[in-house]
């Protein structure tokens, strides 16, 4: 490729790049970064989906602001939706109806806004699962995990405030519940509710206030955090799954220009297009059916947006405990499910990377992702948390389930309550078992290759089972497993008989470490793997003349280099040295 531009457009491009560079020195950055490599994997698209749907939310939301009127002043509706003609309603609701019926394309944009919001939260959640289960939050990426937890919480806030804006019967009922939750907070709750609503519920301030939060405050913080999030990904470079040629010290993938840009940019348009299609075809939040909000009416069997369902479920499943202590009322029945449980969940989520690092004593940088099976306790905790969340979510639909399957509310509630307590530990144990089983299988594969299930009779009469060696891809993936040693148990006193002042903490740490690591199945040594694979090749080769089995048909270069790349498993001693 020649460096001087010959096409007129390229000439203009080059001149402008020069112009900007003379003022900002930008070419230095471009030169260094246009070739930046990004690893490829389908699961890395989840974060992209979240990002793109957020951009779409911004675009469509801005359009909505041109027509939406955040006012609780009562007006008589005189628009074109006949069933509501002459009905008294807030200007917020009337303007939402106008967006849906009077503004051409308004309904499409409104539905795209809502759908992209739903997809935004969903993609974020699944993205978070991916990061969790592959250990991508490990050093050096703990800060980005924290930013992600913040983003998740804000996304829920963005969704809830948005959902409340149309001021229809459903959204108002949601606000009524928020009022009840605020009031349950000890000491300051009553005042908090009065301040938030500008007085008594429902008042006339809440919609304008939610509007400010929804279109300025929350998106502003989201945008800032998303930028920080991406900048950290940029500087730290994306993690990658283990595979041929991939080590902890390199990035294997496609350069930003042109492949990654074309794929990621193209994917933005795909997400945009799909959201437009869904917005055109699938109705979401048909506010005209619900009617305007009034505090003395409710429609039965209504459900909140999916990401709020678990909180609703928690409210439903909670036993009705309430105490009056020294004349003050504490509503545990509201406080626990809507304040304490979410508080614990989000705190646990935020602290997890630090707890795990502490328990494992692992202070190294991790750029290669870990397969979920190779961290059975982490994977178990993740599945247990998902089960916990899932049961709360099911609880949020208990009326639907009870009526559909003709169950008594009472029986269903108790079943769910009990499952909520015992389900997660059971899920943990089962998951851990499965992970360990998979680890055992992996070890077998490394030591013996695949069992082909075919038995071969050798010329001298011996029977052997034919094993096939792993192909080099699998070998790279499976042999990337790392074994961490359990942190040693602390001594009560040192050699000179001096008491160890941190004995208790060290003991706890040792126990946690042991819980986290002790059951792992050790990976065979490189020598054992080489021997095992060689043996498998040997049996397969014996069989080859019979059925034209092609040895290692996909391995152009052999797998010799794969096992010994830097950053691969260390001995226990090396690990412990590293942690000092």
């Amino acid at each position: 490729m020649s460096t001087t531009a010959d096409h007129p457009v390229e000439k203009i491009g080059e001149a402008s790049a020069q112009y900007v560079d003379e003022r900002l020195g930008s070419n230095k950055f471009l030169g260094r970064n246009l070739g930046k490599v990004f690893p490829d994997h389908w699961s890395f698209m989840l974060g992209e989906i979240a990002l793109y749907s957020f951009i779409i939310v911004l675009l469509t939301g801005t359009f909505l602001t041109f027509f939406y009127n955040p006012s609780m002043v009562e007006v008589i509706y005189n628009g074109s939706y006949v069933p509501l003609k002459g009905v008294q309603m807030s200007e917020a609701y009337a303007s939402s109806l106008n967006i849906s019926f009077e503004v051409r394309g308004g309904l499409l944009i409104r539905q795209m806004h809502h759908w992209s919001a739903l997809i935004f939260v969903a993609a974020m959640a699944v993205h978070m699962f991916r990061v969790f289960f592959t250990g991508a939050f490990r050093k050096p990426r703990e800060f980005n995990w924290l930013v992600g937890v913040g983003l998740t919480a804000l996304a829920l806030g963005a969704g809830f405030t948005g959902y409340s804006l149309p001021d229809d019967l459903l959204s108002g009922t949601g606000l009524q519940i928020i009022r009840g939750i605020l009031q349950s907070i000890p000491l300051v709750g009553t005042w908090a509710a009065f301040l938030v609503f500008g007085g008594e519920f429902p008042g006339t301030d809440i919609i304008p206030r939610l509007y400010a939060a929804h279109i300025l405050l929350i998106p502003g913080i989201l945008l800032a955090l998303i930028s920080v999030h991406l900048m950290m990904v940029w500087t730290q470079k994306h993690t990658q799954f283990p595979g041929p040629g991939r080590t902890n010290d390199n990035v294997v993938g496609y350069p930003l220009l042109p492949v990654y840009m074309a794929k990621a940019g193209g994917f933005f348009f795909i997400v945009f297009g799909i959201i437009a299609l869904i917005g055109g075809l699938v109705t979401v939040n048909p506010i005209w059916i619900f009617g305007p909000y009034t505090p003395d009416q409710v429609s039965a069997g209504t459900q909140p947006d999916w990401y709020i369902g678990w909180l609703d479920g928690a409210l439903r499943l909670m036993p009705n405990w309430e105490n009056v202590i020294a004349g003050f009322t504490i509503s545990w029945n509201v406080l626990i499910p809507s304040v304490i449980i979410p508080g614990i969940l989000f705190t646990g989520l935020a602290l997890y990377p630090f707890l795990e690092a502490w328990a494992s004593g692992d202070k190294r940088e991790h750029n290669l992702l870990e397969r979920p099976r190779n961290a059975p306790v982490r994977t178990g905790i993740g599945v247990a948390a998902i089960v916990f969340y899932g049961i709360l979510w099911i609880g949020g639909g208990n009326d639907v389930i009870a009526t559909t399957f003709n169950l008594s509310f009472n029986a269903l509630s108790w079943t769910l309550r009990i499952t909520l307590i015992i389900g997660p530990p059971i899920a943990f144990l089962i998951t851990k078992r499965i992970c360990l089983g998979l680890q055992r299988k992996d070890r077998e594969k490394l030591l013996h290759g695949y069992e082909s299930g075919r038995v071969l009779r050798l010329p001298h009469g011996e029977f052997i089972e034919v094993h096939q060696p792993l192909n080099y891809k699998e070998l790279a993936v499976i042999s990337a497993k790392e074994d961490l040693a359990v942190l040693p148990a602390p001594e009560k006193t040192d050699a000179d008989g001096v008491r160890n002042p941190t004995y208790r903490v060290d003991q706890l740490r040792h126990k946690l470490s042991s819980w986290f690591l002790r059951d792992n199945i050790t990976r065979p040594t490189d020598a054992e793997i080489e021997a095992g694979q060689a043996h498998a090749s040997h049996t397969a080769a014996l069989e080859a003349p019979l059925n034209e089995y092609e040895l290692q048909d996909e391995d152009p270069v052999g797998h010799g280099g794969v096992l010994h790349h830097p950053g691969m498993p260390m001995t226990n001693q090396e690990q412990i040295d590293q942690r000092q």
Partner: protein
Amino acid sequence: MTELTSTSPSQEDGHENTPAKLGHSPVAPIPHRLRVTDTDPKAARRAERQVASMFTLSMVFIILAVIAYATIDKFATIYIPVLGEVGTSNVVLGLTFGIAVFLIGAGAIQWAKKLMPDVEVVQERHDMVSEKSDDQLAAAQYERGKDESGFARYKLIRRSLLGALALFPIPLVVVLRDLWITPADSPSPTEILSETLWTSGKRIVSDGTYVPVRPEDLPVGGLVSALPEGIMEVQEEEHNMNARGKATIILVRMDPDQIRSQQGEGWDYNGILAYSKICTHVGCPIALYEQRTHHLLCPCHQSTFDLADSGAVIFGPAARNMPQLPISVDEEGYLIATQDFAQPVGPSFWERDRT
């Protein structure tokens, strides 16, 4: 035909601009298969045409979208199986615009997959930790700053500054007090939550029609949503629905023998009972009533109350009985309240039991 090659940065025609040249490390054994488009110029030409036609088609759909916007009547509807009767404009706009945008993306990705190099390249990573020399530089700069400012020496300045910085946000929090603007003699939140429009002798009007209710209007087993007389005037005067949110009630009528208990002696009127409509859990209005069992079911979290037994909670997360309103009839035979609720209606709050 697929041919296997191992990737080394500078091989293969068509890939001569692989960024691997720009200082990438030598490549480890990364698998690579040649694509049809790498080896067959005809296939490459086909891919080129494919990508270009997606972009072209996208333009066509954008034009269609604009035409649809301009021509389709916004009230026109169309029947589509599965979707039902839907707005034509919405569906056509969504389809045309969605397909147009999708095609741009599909074209770009096809371009990347078929025609751009699909050779993975390798870059080195470096640990995030700074070089020793940078550490020392940072430390030295910090020390210099500390020395020059005298932050360590001037104890008084340091402490007073920290104090000032700690205090300065206070007004920013204090101003939030007027999120709720109250006149000097305003009742407290507790008082506000504890009082409703109901007073002795206040007539009960039915919701929607706002006409006073007579006992004869209520069939046994029936449920009526009701409000205090004059609610609309209050609402107009206050420009909000606060009064409605607290005063809303339900009236039920049952056989007096079936009433097992009430919150006050004789609070019913000939088997007609009035209860708050606002759930004591977190405040949803309730109107699901099963006349056979006298159970009132909240649609929000399924708290169930027995209206024949003082509105007691028999199931669900609510902790308190539904507050009962004592009623009677006035001399003209209309139902009236004989006093306000004896307890605050709606969700609990911290000071609730101090009233």
